[in-house]
C-alpha cells in the first residue's frame, strides 16, 4: 500500500463516511494502545478477534499488519485521506437496502466510478422502485416514475394498438 490513495482499497462492508471515520477512530485508539505497550517494552496483546470485522477486513484487503507501526501509520493516513477526499454519492431508496445489496452496489461504484467511492443512504418511500442519486453538483433521477415518463409514448401506442384490435370485427 502506498501513499497514493488510489492504491489503498476499502472493503465492501465499509460504504459510508461514518464507517470510515469509525475505522479511523478504532485504528487510532489501537495505535495508542499498542504504542503504550511498546513503550513499556511489552509485547502488545492484541488479537485479530479483538478488532471489528470491518477493520479486520480492511487490514486483510490491504495486507497490513496492525502490529507494524509504519503500516499502522500508513493506514491511518490513508483513512484520513479517504475521509477528507473520497467522493460521496447520496442514494435514496424506497426501503432500507440489505447489506448484500449495498455491498454489490458499492463494488460496482468502486469498479466503475472511483475506487474509494463512499455512499450515504437515505429513505424516500414515495419512490416506489429505483432510486435518486445525488453527487456534489448534480442529481440523477433513476426512479420507476422517470422510466415510465420516458416510455409514456410506448404505453400510449400499446393502448392504441390494443384499442384497434378490440374494435376490429371478429372474423
Amino acid at each position: 500500500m502506498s501513499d497514493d490513495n488510489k492504491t489503498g482499497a476499502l472493503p465492501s462492508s465499509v460504504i459510508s463516511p461514518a464507517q470510515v471515520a469509525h475505522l479511523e477512530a478504532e485504528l487510532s485508539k489501537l495505535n495508542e494502545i499498542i504504542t503504550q505497550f511498546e513503550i513499556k517494552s511489552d509485547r502488545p496483546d492484541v488479537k485479530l478477534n479483538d478488532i471489528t470485522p470491518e477493520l479486520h477486513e480492511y487490514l486483510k484487503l490491504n495486507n497490513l499488519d496492525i502490529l507494524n507501526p509504519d503500516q499502522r501509520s500508513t493506514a491511518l493516513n490513508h483513512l484520513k485521506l479517504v475521509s477528507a477526499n473520497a467522493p460521496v454519492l447520496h442514494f435514496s431508496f424506497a426501503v432500507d437496502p440489505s447489506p448484500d445489496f449495498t455491498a454489490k452496489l458499492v463494488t460496482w461504484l468502486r469498479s466503475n466510478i472511483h475506487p474509494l467511492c463512499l455512499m450515504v443512504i437515505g429513505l424516500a418511500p414515495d419512490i416506489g422502485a429505483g432510486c435518486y442519486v445525488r453527487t456534489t453538483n448534480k442529481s440523477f433521477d433513476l426512479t420507476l416514475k422517470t422510466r415510465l415518463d420516458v416510455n409514456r409514448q410506448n404505453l400510449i401506442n400499446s393502448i392504441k394498438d390494443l384499442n384497434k384490435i378490440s374494435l376490429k370485427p371478429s372474423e
Partner: protein
Amino acid sequence: MGLAAAVIIIIGLVVWMLLTMMKLKNSGQSLLGDAPEKAVEAIFDNDFREELRNRGRLHFEKIITDSAMFLQQDLRLTSSQMAEHIKSVITSKLQDEIVKYVQSVEDAKNVAIEAIEKTNAAIDEQRKALSAQIQAEVAAEKTRAINEFSAHMAEIVNHYILMSIGNQIDLSDQLEFILADLEKNKKDIIEDITHVG
C-alpha cells in the same frame, strides 16, 4: 151597447109618444080634451114602468155578465199569450247565454291548450339546450380527465404500484435496473466528482 140601445129606444118611444100627444093636443085638444093624457097614463102606469125597469135591469145584468165573460176570456187569452211570450223570450235568452258560455269555455280551453303547447315547446327547447350543455360538459370533463391522466400517468402508475405492493418491493430485484441506469449516467457522475476533486 145593448143597454144603451134599449135606453135609446125607450127614450125615442117616449119622445114619439110625447110628440104625438102634442100633435094630438095641438090638433085635437079642443076635440079630445085630456083623454090622451089619460091614455098615456093608462099605458105608462107603474107596472109598465116597473116592467121596463126590470127589463132594463136584466138586460144590463146580461150585458155586464157578457162583458165580464168576454173580459175573462180576453184576460185568459192575454195571460196565456204573455206566458208564451215570456217563455219564448226566456228560452231564447237562455239559449243565447248557453251558446255564449259554451263558446267562452271553448275559447278558454283553446287558450289553455295553446299555453300548454307553448310551455311544452319551451321546456323541450330548454331540455335540448340542457342536454347539449351536459353532453358538452361531460365531454370536456372526460377530455380533462384523460389529459390529466395522460399528463400524470407516470405518477399515477407509480402510486398504484406503491399502493399495491408498498414496502414489499425487494431492492435486490432492482439492482440490475439501478446498475443499468448508473451505467447510462456513468460519464456524468465521473465528470461531476472528478471536477470537484
